[in-house]
């Protein structure tokens, strides 16, 4: 198929220049008189350094030229003596000219070319659903990721490739955990409970989602094996994926073999990572001061006499531990962040062989990645193999095989969450007065059960080092296809694929750990789990492809069946006699269970691409999906789309406008669905509610109840989208611009709506609710300076607006729960999904008069507002502040815009590239402030909470920070806008310096090519956010509670050197 298109392109629609080249190829110049000189040389790729077979080199203004052979070498014989300009070209690459080549009779002159890949070129093939198209023929909004440009960046997972590269795609690097996932959203958040991750399709196989902070379904894929990543954004592009297309689709194509000489490449990189940011917290001396002040304020609030000496104060919140009475004696104390962070190495090696004959082509690679995390004891290792083989069985029949087994091992540390179990939160909250270890070398758990009124905090170093949490994953993705040309225009193709995924987890908490306030020895706990997924796909398509004069028609019809079965086993044990044996055979099993779940999907699909005069383009697609997840009354859904394009630049009247090389208008409309509702949500299932009955301690007797209502009408979520787009190329595409406007309305949202409990249930799944995402996207690529010195810029920016249009039957808001059980978010009509919700801080009460004259927290309460407490907005205007009634929306988790900017500068063999990305106009819910920003000093505090604090009307601090108080008064510690911080950031995400070793030297050491590079990742972040990383999502893909930072694994800054060698 691709070859067909390619040939058709070459033969029919090629530029006069290419025709000239073809003519040259057809009439090779050999055996002629030898009175002229000879020009020879090698054509190589600027980035990979590999040679380019089949490139054309011509002598400008003559009919002479040659194509490169398998080794990328060309020879032009018998050139008349003189001075010439030579031009080398190859599809997908930018032309290169070398002027002033002097040819003398009988002499040989060597001219080598280094060609740069041209990204987003008009003839570039783009993978669309179940077909391929040239970029110029696209009618939908589809972006390609410049995968080749990113080669060498220390990127370990494909989703990271998308970061900042494509307008409309928001990738948040929410964790720096080795092997951890990102969150990816295409054109906003449209679903409340069915997930917002796009559909990933690897070599035609749609894989199941399942990102979270520790796991990543793309983690088993080696990014170096990727040939192309195409992102389908509008409904005309995604509707062909039917009930899975509404969140956008990411199509990943892996490298396949090319006929020609065997290319052996070896890539290696080694890097050192460090924590990119430290959170500023108090040292021991400052902490002791803060405790004294906080407890003194609580004491005075309670009616205590401030003249009572510190050491004589009694009572939980007032008593000051002896060791804190003299702060100046304490000094710096322990810097817990120093203790958990480390400079850690990361290394990656890959060996790949690519080549084949005309009839059998192969790409085989093997790689090993070892990334030690910046937090002690965290690590990710991946062994991956890939074998992609294509064979021509006859003139008409072809087959192919894609096979990629991988094995990975992750050592996970619990970064965030409860202070009793969190390494990162533990490090910022642990009291600096404690040492990591006791004098006898054992871990010091004093912070787990310190004096009255201090929070129990696990020793974070012990938590990281002593608790084992290992996850292993074996994954085998494989598919085989066969193709047969039924006629010259009709191609039949059948594919069978399987994605087998097997994960194991082993966890052990030894007796040497504290548990809550209980100090060691504690009862050890071990768990073991397995998870296995078998996902198979069978697909058959017929493709009809015909050009009739000015009409160009492509039709695909197909049918697919897919089924996934997941099985899980969980075992828990405790009462281990010692810590020597940590597998569960040593303990007493307390829990064991296995689970199995399945889904199945049947689909029929069709697409028609029609072009008239290569100017008027029309695409229509339709898919009909039947899913086991939908209710019996709603089992099948139909998802149509239509799109049109007008290539104005091809119109006769545009011929004279020579500076416009490409101009296209696009418009599309379509529907796609989201089928990620729970597997059996339409059924009323029976679940266990056991009872204890019988004599003595009793027996557990099985009881069974329905877990909810059945709903036979339950169905997919539907999103309807229109897209208007413009593609513009100027000055031979030295400037190319793509702009899109879209409006996507997601309806029939699956909501687990709250229902009156008098029904016996608290929630029921219903298809109600509507969310709008609309916005603009702009991509601009410019070739600013060409020649020996090159400067290219790629820029993209996206604006998305998110608004809830409809909710449950009564339109009642849905409250999102962060921090365990506290309401932190609201989803209500007219506001973005999952807006932050709480009291709105206006300032700090400076004087008694101010408290008197403004609405304040209930006067009758013992913890009424006093000077130094927060002044909140009286939202309901009743003259007082009531927590329940004065809450309002206090922030938006979604940015006004996100952008990515890449500049690359090249001079001969050296290239320097900067990649900046950022997001502006969004807020982060910094839940860490629950402890480190609570002004109570029962854990360590942010320096800002101490230095900016209100002390007295004469020492008002920074005017934003309340007084310290162990018993926070005036609602200071309730959910309010003090938790909400501006998250806007701009990050210099990558700096890369490439050096292409000159071919003369390379050849002298028996290599074909060699590239060396140095990269700095996450070099610098400009942000006002005081946590580690403004890209946060504690609750993963939960769109009811987005944007929470509760101690995620910080991202690393890394310095990497690497080399790519071609043999």
């Amino acid at each position: 198929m691709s070859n067909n298109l390619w040939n058709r392109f070459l033969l029919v629609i090629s530029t006069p220049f290419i025709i000239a080249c073809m003519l040259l190829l057809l009439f090779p110049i050999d055996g002629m008189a030898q009175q002229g000189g000879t020009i020879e040389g090698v054509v190589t790729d600027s980035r990979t350094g590999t040679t380019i077979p089949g490139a054309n080199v011509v002598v400008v203004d003559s009919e002479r030229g040659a194509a490169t052979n398998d080794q990328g070498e060309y020879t032009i014989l018998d050139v008349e003596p003189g001075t010439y300009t030579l031009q080398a070209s190859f599809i997908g690459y930018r032309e290169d000219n070398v002027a002033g080549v002097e040819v003398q009779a009988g002499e040989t002159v060597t001219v080598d070319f280094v060609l740069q890949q041209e990204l987003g070129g008009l003839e570039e093939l783009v993978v669309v659903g179940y077909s391929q198209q040239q970029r110029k023929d696209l009618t939908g909004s589809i972006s390609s990721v410049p995968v080749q440009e990113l080669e060498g960046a220390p990127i370990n997972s494909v989703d990271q490739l998308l970061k900042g590269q494509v307008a409309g795609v928001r990738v948040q690097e929410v964790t720096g955990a080795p092997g951890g996932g990102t969150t990816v959203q295409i054109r906003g958040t449209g679903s409340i409970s069915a997930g917002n991750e796009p559909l990933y399709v690897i070599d035609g196989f749609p894989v199941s989602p399942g990102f979270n902070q520790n796991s990543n379904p793309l983690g088993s894929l080696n990014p170096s094996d990727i040939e192309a990543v195409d992102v389908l954004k509008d409904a005309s592009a995604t509707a062909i994926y039917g009930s899975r297309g509404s969140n956008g689709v990411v199509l990943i194509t892996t490298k396949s073999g090319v006929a020609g000489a065997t290319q052996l490449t070896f890539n290696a990189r080694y890097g050192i990572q460090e924590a990119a940011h430290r959170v500023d917290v108090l040292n021991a001396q400052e902490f002791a001061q803060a405790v004294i002040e906080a407890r003194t304020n609580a004491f005075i609030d309670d009616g205590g006499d401030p003249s009572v000496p510190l050491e004589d104060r009694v009572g939980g919140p007032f008593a000051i531990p002896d060791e804190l009475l003299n702060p100046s004696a304490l000094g710096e104390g322990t810097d817990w962040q120093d203790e958990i962070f480390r400079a850690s190495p990361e290394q990656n090696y890959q060996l790949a062989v690519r080549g084949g004959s005309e009839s059998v082509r192969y790409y085989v690679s093997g790689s090993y990645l070892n990334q030690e995390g910046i937090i002690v004891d965290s690590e990710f290792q991946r062994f991956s193999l890939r074998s992609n083989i294509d064979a021509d069985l006859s003139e008409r029949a072809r087959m192919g095989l894609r096979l990629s087994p991988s094995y990975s091992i992750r050592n996970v540390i619990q970064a965030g969450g409860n202070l009793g179990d969190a390494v990162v939160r533990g490090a910022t909250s642990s009291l600096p007065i404690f040492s990591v270890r006791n004098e006898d070398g054992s871990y010091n758990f004093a912070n787990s059960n310190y004096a009255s009124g201090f929070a129990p905090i696990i020793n974070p170093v012990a938590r990281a080092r002593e608790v084992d949490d290992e996850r292993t994953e074996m994954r085998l993705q494989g598919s085989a296809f066969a193709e047969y040309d039924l006629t010259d225009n009709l191609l039949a193709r059948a594919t069978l694929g399987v994605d087998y995924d097997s994960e194991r987890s082993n966890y052990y908490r030894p007796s040497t750990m504290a548990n809550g306030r209980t100090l060691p020895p504690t009862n050890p706990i071990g768990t073991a789990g397995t998870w296995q997924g078998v996902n198979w796909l069978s697909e058959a398509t017929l493709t009809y492809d015909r050009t009739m004069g000015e009409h160009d028609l492509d039709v695909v019809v197909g049918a697919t069946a897919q089924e996934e079965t997941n099985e899980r086993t969980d075992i828990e044990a405790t009462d281990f006699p010692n810590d020597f044996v940590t597998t569960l055979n040593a303990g007493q099993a307390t829990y064991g269970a296995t689970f199995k779940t399945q889904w199945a999907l049947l689909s029929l699909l069709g697409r028609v691409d029609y072009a008239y005069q290569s100017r008027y383009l029309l695409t229509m697609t339709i898919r009909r999906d039947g899913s086991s997840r939908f209710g019996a009354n709603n089992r099948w859904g139909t998802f149509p789309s239509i799109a049109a394009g007008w290539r104005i630049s091809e119109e006769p009247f545009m011929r004279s406008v020579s500076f416009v090389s490409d101009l296209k208008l696009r418009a599309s409309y379509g529907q796609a669905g989201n089928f990620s509702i729970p597997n059996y949500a339409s059924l009323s299932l029976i679940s266990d509610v056991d009872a204890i009955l019988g004599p003595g301690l009793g027996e557990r007797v099985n009881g069974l109840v329905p877990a909810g209502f059945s709903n036979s009408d339950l169905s997919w979520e539907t999103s309807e989208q229109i897209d208007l787009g413009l593609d513009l190329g100027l000055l031979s595409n030295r400037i190319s611009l793509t702009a899109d406007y879209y409006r996507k309305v997601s309806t029939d949202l699956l909501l687990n709506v709250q229902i009156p409990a008098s029904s016996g249930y608290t929630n029921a799944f219903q298809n109600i609710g509507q969310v709008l995402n609309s916005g603009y996207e702009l991509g601009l690529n410019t070739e600013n300076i060409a020649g020996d010195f090159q400067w290219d810029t790629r820029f993209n920016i996206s604006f998305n607006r998110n608004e809830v249009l409809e909710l449950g039957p009564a339109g009642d808001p849905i409250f999102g729960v962060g921090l365990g059980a506290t309401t932190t978010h609201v989803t209500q009509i007219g506001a973005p999904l999952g807006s932050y919700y709480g009291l709105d801080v206006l300032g700090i009460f400076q004087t008694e008069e101010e408290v008197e004259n403004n609405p304040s927290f209930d006067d009758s309460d013992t913890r009424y507002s006093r000077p130094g407490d927060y002044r909140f907005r009286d939202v309901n205007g009743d003259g007082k502040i009531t927590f329940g009634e004065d809450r309002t929306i206090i922030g938006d988790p979604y940015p006004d815009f996100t952008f990515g900017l890449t500049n690359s500068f090249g001079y001969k063999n050296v290239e320097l590239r900067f990649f900046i990305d950022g997001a502006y106009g969004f807020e982060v819910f910094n839940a860490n402030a629950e402890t480190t920003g609570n002004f109570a000093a029962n854990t360590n505090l942010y320096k800002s909470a101490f230095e900016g604090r209100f002390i007295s009307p004469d020492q008002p601090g920074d005017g934003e920070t309340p007084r310290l108080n162990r018993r926070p008064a005036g609602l200071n510690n309730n959910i309010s806008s003090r938790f909400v911080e501006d998250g806007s950031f701009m990050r210099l995400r990558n700096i890369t310096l490439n050096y292409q070793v000159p071919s003369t030297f390379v050849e002298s050491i028996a290599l074909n090519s060699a590239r060396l590079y140095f990269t700095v990742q996450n070099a610098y972040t400009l942000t006002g956010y005081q946590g580690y990383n403004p890209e946060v999502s504690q609750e993963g893909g939960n769109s009811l509670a987005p944007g929470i930072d509760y101690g995620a694994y910080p991202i690393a800054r890394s310095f990497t050197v690497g080399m790519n060698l071609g043999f």
Partner: protein
Amino acid sequence: MTYAKLGITVVFATLILTSCDNFLARTPPSQASVEEFYQNASDIDAAVVAIYGTLRSTGLYGRFWAYGDLRSDIGDMTFPGGFDPLTNIDEFSLTPSNRLLNQTWVAHYEGIARSNTVLNRIENAELDESGANQFRGEAAFLRGLMYFNLVRIFDRVPLVVSEVNSINEIESERSPIDEIYDQIISDLETASQLLPEAYTGNDLGRATSGAASSLLGKVYLTRQNYPAAVEALEDVITSGHYRLLDEYSDIFDYNNPTHDEAIFTVRYQANGQGFGSSYSDEFAPRDYPDVPGGQTRNRPTLTLLDAYTTEDEERFTATIDTQFVDSGGNVVSQRYNKKYLTPNPFSGEGHDDWPVLRYADVLLMYAEALNEVGRTEEAHAPLNRVRDRAGLAATSGLSQSGFRESVYQERMIELAFEGHRWFDLLRTGRAIEVMANADPSYNIDEHQLIFPIPQAQIDVTGGALEQNPGY
């Protein structure tokens, strides 16, 4: 190459003609669905057992003490402010958004719905009539128990007595109080007729006809229908299945919860899987050996301590202590409630069970009811049986009003921390006066005698459910 064409055609045909509905109709391998359930005796049995399973939840008997004891004059919170949902109940400062209120509402209606489902589905299941009658009786008893709790806590509530199968069938408006009580009484009468008098083996602990009659007596007492109460309670006493244990402290021995004094008990088992009770964890003082999470909640008030006479030592030592030796060997002064204080083998999980109904309660109710119908002389005997077991002298010759005070006092001591006190104060109309005497700072108002309807439920019904006055 016709074979290739044939092959392709076959692939297509197979895919398109695969019986779509069979391929797509999936039933969950790890869970049964309602369509396959409620077929026979063992299905219905499991559905009934699940109603008992509901009773352990926080909103049912897990924190019933918060309503029965903490709210009253006998229990308080040691660290006010430490845990607001409970402190607010103790201090009469609670608001409709209190989390425990909603948990209570939800748990009770879950139990009611499970009972309704059993009573509906049993009609089409295949099982013999005697088995069916026992299950009907159990479901009716448990439904009556839950409605009785609900009306005492929230006053009028929506009365739902049939299975609800879709959101369109939900009733959320509050029903008249008499209608609810009529239903409770009818359920308990049905239960007392259908239920067996006793069980053996693993059925021990299921509801008996004695349990239904005891609860019926309590309902009548609450409705101040004393003659009916006397009749119902007499059925229990004359059944011969129950007696007072010799030692008061044996009542709370978790190793033997199915003893002769127990009439209906909510059972727990600490097995590390969420089947244990949190009583010892919540009631034990901090640093108490064997109970690492001790939080000193529901602490005995000084009012309660004063209520014990010096002769009442056996019951005092089984109920209250004022100091303990911590794991470091230090003597710590702290009042705490020790009726449920057993070692917690799993953090937060104990074996302690919750005595919903026991024979001493029945005897005291009987004594009270006899006194109210004017049979004061006869009423002395059941009261004295309880006093005698506690090692106290018999009372005699009390006037009707004197006897009334005496039986109130006896209930306060005998049944302390078993979830009765607040409801006893309510049904005898003494709550405001007693609370004011205990601690004037409570300063309670008439509207606080019933709890607010949970705000979450009002919100979710769009206001169809009305709030109680004063909140």
